């Protein structure tokens, strides 16, 4: 199991915009470099990318929640 950690503090989103599908659903295949989330901070949106490949297990943070740098955002099964 690998955790995807937040590189920056901000607000975390599990989809690219309201009403859009989640970046990943449980069971989806994940390739290293895939976008699995979005963080808003300082008027900027930053893609959160997976660093490992595997199977997406779950988000660990709710859509729209406040996060700190280093916070675990999602889990990927190796």
């Amino acid at each position, binding site marked *: 199991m690998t955790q995807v*950690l*937040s*590189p*920056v*503090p*901000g*607000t975390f989103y599990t989809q690219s915009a309201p009403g859009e599908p989640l970046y990943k659903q449980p069971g989806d295949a994940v390739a290293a470099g895939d976008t699995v989330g979005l963080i*808003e*901070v*300082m*008027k*900027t949106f*930053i893609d959160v990318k997976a660093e490992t490949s595997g199977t997406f297990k779950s988000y660990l943070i709710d859509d729209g929640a*406040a996060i*700190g*740098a*280093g916070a675990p955002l999602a889990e990927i099964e190796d």
Partner: protein
Amino acid sequence: MSLKVIQPGLSTSIQDLGRPGYFHLGIPIGGAMDRFALRVANMLVGNPEGAAGLEVVFMGPEIVFEKDALVAVTGADLPAKVDGKPQEGWTAFEVKAGQTLKFDFLKSGARAYIAISGGIDTPPALGSRSTYPIGALGGIEGRNVQAGDVIPLGEAEMIEPGLNVPKELRRLPDNPAELRVLPGLYWHRLTPAAQEGFFDDDWTVALEADRMGYRFKGGKPLEFVGREQPFGAGADPSNIVDGCYSYGSIQVPGGLEPIVLHRDAVSGGGYFTLGAIISADMDLIGQLQPHTPVKFRKVGMDEALKARSDRKKMLAAVRAHLG
């Protein structure tokens, strides 16, 4: 001799202590948002306090050194690693030619300052190397640092590594952070209830917080004393006939979310400003992460000046400690 940027981080910029003297022309003072941290970083590596370094926001860069240098990282707790080996913050360490400086996740604070012996030697613009992206001034081509940039360094007078600033001589905001406010020219525009509410309310740092301004949310909307708006002011009660803004002034568009103007802010406009954050607390704002709880506390001029004097004493104590 220089640094090569492999990854820039989120928003890394070259900053010194800024370019005062042009604010009346609309060119902001610029410079490090946490000036104390930049000064101390420079002292640790034997630079003049106002030498240019890197201001790193939330996420560290990856940099390869092309010559031996002494480096110090101050301000936010952003753990540095040289070729994977962890380094202490607020401490001078060596980086050899060919080695890579990288960072772990941010632990606290918001902005780390990286000083390198010799200082960054990009061409000054209007007397400063500070980057002001909106005006395309300073730094490298007037912009933030990018992957592939080669950052020139000045000639260094090498001192020994290992100089360190103890915890009691470092400064980071408390949680909740307290920011002291001196009410200003337009204070009378607020009703007494709004004047009190501003200081009683619990605020948090909004996501819209950068070098131009820090926005706060969570408090009650401010109520204004009724008046017929003067000629030239807009219809919104938070509007005034255009006036000057100072560094640290607090504007509240629509009476809703206060914005503290910081180093790269505009110099004037048509929003009333209820007062200003005292100069002694401006460095602290540069270290606030989004969502941080904040209380504003009202002070008078005497306390503001005392706080400014205390900050100067703290800087003097660091100079004395480092000899």
